[in-house]
């Protein structure tokens, strides 16, 4: 559906344009557009409108970036409303937290946060429509049944469509959502059924409007050249030459707002088309002021880590029992230093945002995962009132956490603030990769000991990460609860931080996507040192009662749930069976975002270190209900293959403060022939509230594969990416 200028009375001419005199109207979002087509006769709440002709429109409240929420959340509403899924209209909501509650796409939170409220919202609508029918027919509500958008009275063989009942329902007072009776899950007809994405048809015909496809009349295109080293300001730029290039309307310098995660200094080039802006940018010559981040490099990070490991941790995160004493009396001790690199999100649609400054108001269209935060950032950076900012949500071509950050939104708004027409900032792939909010790298020195019975008696971690003093850089932290904390009597974790001038943040399964590799690999080392089977070693560990010291934030980890998925994954894979030489099975498990996942990888390694992941088995526990089994399988397959990309070859390195890798030729994603041909997945249903699936299936795959490589070859992988050790996809 192409958004359009709807209400001609609302048109507002802000400038007569050279080359056409196009009028710029006040944009009305898809929500108003959809509702203008079918005016609401009954709207029990912000999520549901029912027209007199029976058309039901449901609001998809959260940003869609490929995780399937635009399908999954309305399924919950439709189920309780007893709507006909085949005929409902689903519309992306604009940012309006007062109406819809929190709107974000991150942390696998959409399911746990919305499961109860959206079921209640749907049920309120159903109750009111049934009450309207009861009043119309003067029969007890208890004799009525709602089904597929109609209310039925079996005794008198009467029925009425929701559209017919809408006017009467609109006169009733909505019940308290918390008191309405919800459906028994055994009666579900929508939830639990594999449901294809509602935008699929538009996607396969090329008609879905992604953010980068969205235009408004009179719009210009911008490119923004930033310093390669984060935070440096422009010294000189040949703006006159750039302004003389075909189609260029503006070229100007912007100063940063002091936050490298928000607006950094650079040169904006605004032209009639993107290609003209790009061609002009190719002629841009800019020099940058000196900045401390220019002295950063990956080599210097490595050197600093090595130096920090020579001393004890700068500060303690947790310390239980007598770690050093227990280590010295252990039967066997194991020591290993692990590391992993910075990596980029690289969603396939590079960052972009459209902004229009008019009449003291800023209007924004972007695919943000956190639009409310985006609005705050724009307000703060530009010194405008939040109330003067409207934020329309557009469909994003992949998120993975990248669109949590809104830096491109702030840039677009800052550029729009300087000109009098709507402007779309569209980053190049190189912009996107060299100016990511990166998954931080890190280093771990681990020491642990096992007793004669093969149990872990002591564990100590020295985590060298990034930050200032004792304050970790974003997503570079490690909590005191990190498993196996609570399962080892003498347990210590300390950290030392390297100062950092690179923007860092959350990448799909933040922190977990790196720590799982380290801890689950080291557990594997301990299993072998103890002479135990890696599955049995984990099951034994998880059978104990977790004992966390007082005063630390409990992460809700339930060992019994993890025990169940480890057992299931091992059974699925036929763990323990004989495999040919050069083939190995590896297991790993990890808890993140309330989800429990265990994965087994069967890996074949040839004599040249060519690797094939022949098959992966995934067992997951995300509660009692899988809302959309098709979407759930997509997330599991996607997470596994995404993790394999991180494992094999992805790495961002820095020289003179700048990212070296700038496109997919140097930052490889997994390609089709490299992906495991079979990923078998199974959910262990447990009596817990449903939780999200965007992330928790990713972390275990990395150590599952490196543990399998150990089983196949005897080589223990302690640093990533795998490519550095000579491995490649066979």
């Amino acid at each position, binding site marked *: 559906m192409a958004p359009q200028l709807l209400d001609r009375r609302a048109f507002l001419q802000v400038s007569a344009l050279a080359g056409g005199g196009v009028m710029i109207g006040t944009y009305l979002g898809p929500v108003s557009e959809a509702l203008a087509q079918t005016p609401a006769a009954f709207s029990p709440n912000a999520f549901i409108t029912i027209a007199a002709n029976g058309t039901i429109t449901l609001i998809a409240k959260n940003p869609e*970036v*490929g*995780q*399937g929420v635009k399908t999954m959340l309305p399924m919950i509403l439709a189920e309780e409303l007893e709507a006909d899924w085949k005929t409902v209209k689903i519309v992306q909501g604009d940012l309006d937290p007062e109406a819809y509650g929190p709107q974000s796409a991150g942390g696998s939170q959409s399911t746990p946060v919305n499961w109860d409220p959206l079921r209640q919202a749907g049920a309120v609508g159903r109750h009111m429509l049934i009450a309207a029918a009861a009043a119309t027919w003067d029969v007890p509500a208890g004799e009525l049944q709602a089904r597929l958008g109609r209310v039925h009275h079996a005794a008198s063989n009467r029925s009425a469509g929701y559209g017919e009942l809408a006017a009467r329902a609109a006169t009733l007072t909505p019940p308290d959502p918390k008191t309405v009776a919800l459906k028994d899950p055994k009666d579900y007809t929508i939830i639990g059924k*594999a449901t*294809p*994405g509602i*935008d*699929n*048809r538009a*996607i*396969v*015909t*090329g*008609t*879905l*409007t*992604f953010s*980068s*496809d969205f235009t408004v009349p009179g719009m210009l*295109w911008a490119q923004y050249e930033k310093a390669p080293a984060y935070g440096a300001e422009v010294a000189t730029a040949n703006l006159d030459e750039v302004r003389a290039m*075909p189609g260029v309307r503006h070229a100007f310098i912007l100063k940063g707002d002091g936050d490298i995660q928000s607006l950094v200094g650079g040169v904006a080039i605004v032209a009639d*088309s*993107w*290609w003209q802006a790009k*061609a002009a940018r190719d002629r841009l010559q800019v020099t940058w002021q000196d900045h401390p981040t220019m002295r950063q490099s990956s080599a210097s990070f490595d050197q600093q880590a090595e130096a920090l490991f020579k001393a004890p941790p700068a500060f303690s995160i947790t310390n239980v029992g007598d770690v050093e004493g227990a280590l010295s009396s252990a039967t066997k001790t194991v020591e290993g230093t692990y590391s992993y690199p910075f990596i980029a999100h*690289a*969603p*396939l*649609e*590079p960052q972009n945002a459209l902004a229009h400054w008019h009449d003291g108001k800023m209007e924004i269209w972007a695919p943000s995962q956190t639009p409310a935060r985006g609005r705050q950032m724009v307000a703060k950076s530009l010194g405008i009132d939040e109330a003067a900012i409207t934020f329309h949500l557009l*469909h*994003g*071509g*992949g*998120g*993975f956490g990248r669109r949590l950050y809104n830096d491109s939104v702030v840039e677009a708004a800052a550029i729009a603030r300087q000109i009098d027409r709507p402007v779309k900032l*569209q980053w190049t*792939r*190189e912009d996107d990769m060299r100016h990511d909010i990166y998954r931080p790298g890190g280093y771990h020195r681990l020491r642990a000991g096992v007793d004669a019975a093969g149990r872990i008696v002591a564990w100590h971690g020295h985590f060298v990460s990034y930050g200032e003093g004792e304050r970790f850089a974003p997503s570079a932290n490690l909590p005191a609860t990190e498993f196996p904390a609570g399962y080892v009597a003498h347990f210590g974790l300390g950290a030392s931080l390297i100062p950092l001038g690179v923007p860092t943040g959350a990448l799909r399964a933040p922190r977990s996507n790196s720590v799982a590799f380290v801890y689950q690999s080291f557990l594997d080392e301990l299993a072998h040192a103890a002479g135990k089977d890696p599955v049995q070693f984990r099951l034994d560990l998880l059978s104990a009662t977790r004992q966390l010291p007082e005063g630390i934030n409990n992460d809700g980890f339930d060992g019994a749930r993890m025990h169940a998925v480890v057992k299931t994954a091992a059974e699925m894979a036929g763990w323990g069976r004989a495999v040919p030489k050069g083939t190995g099975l590896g297991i790993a498990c990890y808890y993140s975002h309330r989800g429990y996942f265990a994965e087994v990888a069967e890996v074949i390694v040839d004599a040249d270190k060519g690797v094939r992941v022949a098959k992966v088995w995934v067992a997951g526990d995300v509660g009692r209900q899988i809302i959309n089994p*098709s979407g759930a399988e*997509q997330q599991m*397959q*996607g997470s*596994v*293959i*995404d993790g394999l*990309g991180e494992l094999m070859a992805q790495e961002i390195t820095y020289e003179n403060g700048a990212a070296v890798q700038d*496109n*997919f*030729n140097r930052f490889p*994603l*997994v*390609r*089709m*022939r490299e*992906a495991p*041909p*079979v*990923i078998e997945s199974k959910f262990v249903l447990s009596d817990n509230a449903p939780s999200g699936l965007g992330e928790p299936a990713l972390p275990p795959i990395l150590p599952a594969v490196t543990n399998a490589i150990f089983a196949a070859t005897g080589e223990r992988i302690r640093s990533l990416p795998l490519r550095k050790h000579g491995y490649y996809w066979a």
Partner: protein
Amino acid sequence: MAYTLTVNGRTTTVEVPADMPLLWVLRDVLELRGTKYGCGISACGACTVHLNGRAVRACQTKVSAADGASIMTIEGLSPDGTHPLQQAWQDVDVPQCGYCQAGQIMSAAALLAQTPKPTDEDIDRAMNGNLCRCATYLRIRQAIHKAAAMTATTTVQQAAANRPGQDQE
């Protein structure tokens, strides 16, 4: 410079610089935005279109090299979204974010035109230039097989329907 392109069956003339990539001519001049920008260096395949029947990356095809050519984009693959690949993609529920899928489908369409019953190896080879950041690969492979089977069935039905005498009541 003026270039004549036949895009999805319609011939049109565009006045653009010789080195402008076909991708941006399609997107910004002809406003056919189903073809996507992903990398600009032929590394991701999001911009795959057919040039005289062959799958090419529009980001690295200069408009001058497409002068006089017949170009097909996702918008022209079928008049009503019923190409077997478009149907199979929906049946299998392939897309996640969907951004790469137009390019994936165009690569697959070129494959099926050459190889109506592809093996897994044929598919892997033909699709190797198309990245999917959401990693929908297993379902893409499944959907291509399904579309191939649908095409085969359609062909058999058409052959049956076209037998002499079949239409005479």
